[in-house]
């Protein structure tokens, strides 16, 4: 298990001067960003600001046209694909909750566990006592112990979001990218999610993309505002939300 104390690097992830364009449209425009180990960071920005594309670049789904994406000071993520990057310890939650609907909650977590992922290893895998207790632990973290053997398809939207977060935990990542975790959640669920994320951030870095300003206030962390593919402002929520450029671009509307 990697803890933040052991890795002791200056930055966990940094993006420098990253650009990417689709058919002439610049989705990301010389974006630079640094995430410290153990940091919980919120990213806000209007639609089309490039938030999701940024996540695509970090997780290897999209290759940047130019720029550097470095993980743990030495690993160039632009040379890796999704599976490599996931194995390096970057987990990602999608905007739309993406879980395996035809599997049970338990199976979803079992698949996410950070074990050997080769073809033959999975073919001959049997559930060990250690893995079992780990899954039970996560189940209780995401408060789904009583629904462990239900099909994921039958979960509510909020529960799917939580299950997905649970799967990320099972992956034991060093960095978690969370895309709109509270979209479609009730207020109570939102508040609980904030607590959960803060708890998670104690042992690893988390980047949250969110529209819900109340939620971000709840988190109470450093905020980065993106617009048109580059950083508009960065700082505490109060600092950012008083920035005139941010107001014009995002909050004002």
């Amino acid at each position: 298990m990697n803890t933040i104390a052991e890795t002791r690097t200056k930055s966990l992830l940094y993006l420098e001067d990253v650009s990417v364009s689709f058919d002439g449209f610049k989705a990301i425009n010389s974006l630079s960003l640094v995430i410290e180990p153990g940091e919980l960071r919120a990213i806000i920005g209007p639609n089309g600001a490039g938030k999701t594309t940024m996540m695509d670049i970090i997780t290897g789904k999209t290759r940047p046209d130019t720029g550097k994406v470095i993980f743990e000071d030495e690993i160039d993520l632009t040379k890796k694909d999704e599976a490599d990057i996931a194995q390096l310890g970057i987990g990602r939650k999608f905007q739309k909750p993406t879980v395996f609907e035809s599997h049970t909650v338990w199976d979803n977590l079992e698949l996410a566990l950070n074990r050997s992922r080769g073809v033959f290893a999975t073919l001959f895998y049997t559930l060990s006592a250690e893995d079992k207790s780990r899954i039970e632990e996560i189940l209780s973290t995401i408060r789904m112990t009583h629904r462990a053997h239900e099909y994921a398809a039958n979960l509510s939207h909020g529960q799917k979001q939580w299950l997905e977060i649970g799967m990320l935990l099972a992956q034991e990542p060093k960095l978690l990218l969370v895309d709109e975790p509270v979209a479609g959640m009730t207020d109570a669920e939102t508040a609980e999610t904030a607590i959960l994320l803060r708890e998670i951030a104690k042992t690893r870095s988390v980047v949250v993309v969110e529209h819900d300003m109340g939620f971000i206030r709840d988190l109470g962390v450093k905020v980065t505002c993106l617009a048109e593919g580059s950083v508009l402002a960065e700082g505490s929520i109060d600092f950012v939300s008083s920035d005139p450029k941010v107001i014009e671009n995002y909050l004002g509307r």
Partner: protein
Amino acid sequence: MISGFILRALEGKIVIAAGILLAVAMLVPALNLLTPPDSAFHIPTYVMALMGKYLCYALLALALDLVWGYCGILSLGHGAFFALGGYAMGMYLMRQIGSRGTYGNPDLPDFMVFLNWKELPWFWYGFDMFPFAMLMVLVVPGLLAFFFGWFAFRSRVNGVYLSIITQAMTYALMLAFFRNDMGFGGNNGLTDFKDILGFQVQAGGTRAVLFAMSAIMLALCLIVASAITRSKFGKVLVGVRDAESRVRFLGFRVENIKLFTFVVSAMFAGIAGALFVPQVGIINPGEFAPANSIEVVVWTAVGGRGTLIGPIIGAILVNAGKSYFTGAFPEFWLFALGGLFIAVTLFLPKGIVGTIQHGWNARKALKAAAEAEKGRDAGTPPVTQQVQAAE
């Protein structure tokens, strides 16, 4: 480890199905050989030959189900693997004819003699040996699937694009095998077989053994398929089908997962082809025809994809229907067949077995969980459960 792998496969339904298949493997040949023709229990050779054919088709459908039903790869070219397995077997049978061919040439098959070939092409070497030929039954389709899949899955060719290039593959192979210069007998293919392992292909005993082998191989492949799908790998497979990117972001190498499944499936198809050829007595490029591969998809869909028993039942039912209708209503059977496909897709979107299973599960869920989500429409299954692999 291995034993756990196999033991896991032996779930209730699979055990029953495999049991039935094994019983059929014993019973049908016995009734064919041991009862007198006018006995009420007698199974005529014609019927046994038909059933043997259906079992081969069932195995082919099972192979397709593994990649389509579980992994979401709709292959429109599985007929190619079937045909390649068949050709490997056909080449062995051809070499067994030896000097009993029409021209009495000990080395060259007849079609090479009358096209004036002087020596055996290199790719025919070794096919006079049964073990080598059987190895090729697995290796040739496996290798083709490996190279094809290696490129396609690595480049992330997906959904419809993948389906269409598998179709292009089987179409190209069909055209190639039609060419006489390829050395596989052109459009006439390989036929007029005499012996298999020294036994006459046409003899009653040989037919019975071939039939039994088909049933046994189907049972074996069913167990292997069950072992695969019930392992953690199988769960990953379903994951790939339902949410490929999630699997990828969990750190799995999706291309390897697909490749493995594709290769295993191709080998199943190869085995099916190899068993098919001695029973029907001919293999020719017609088996590569894209329409044949589409038919396999239809059997699988009719039976119910994503269930292992479904494709077997689908293949047997559709083909039995086809045999009956082509004899009973030769002018109109296509209407019946076409209508069946439309009806199945409209009214039984999960196929026969899938629908039964679903209904059963739904009842179980209804009884067991009172707190289950409120009033889902009983008639309309939740669409979300079957997220399609294609866009």
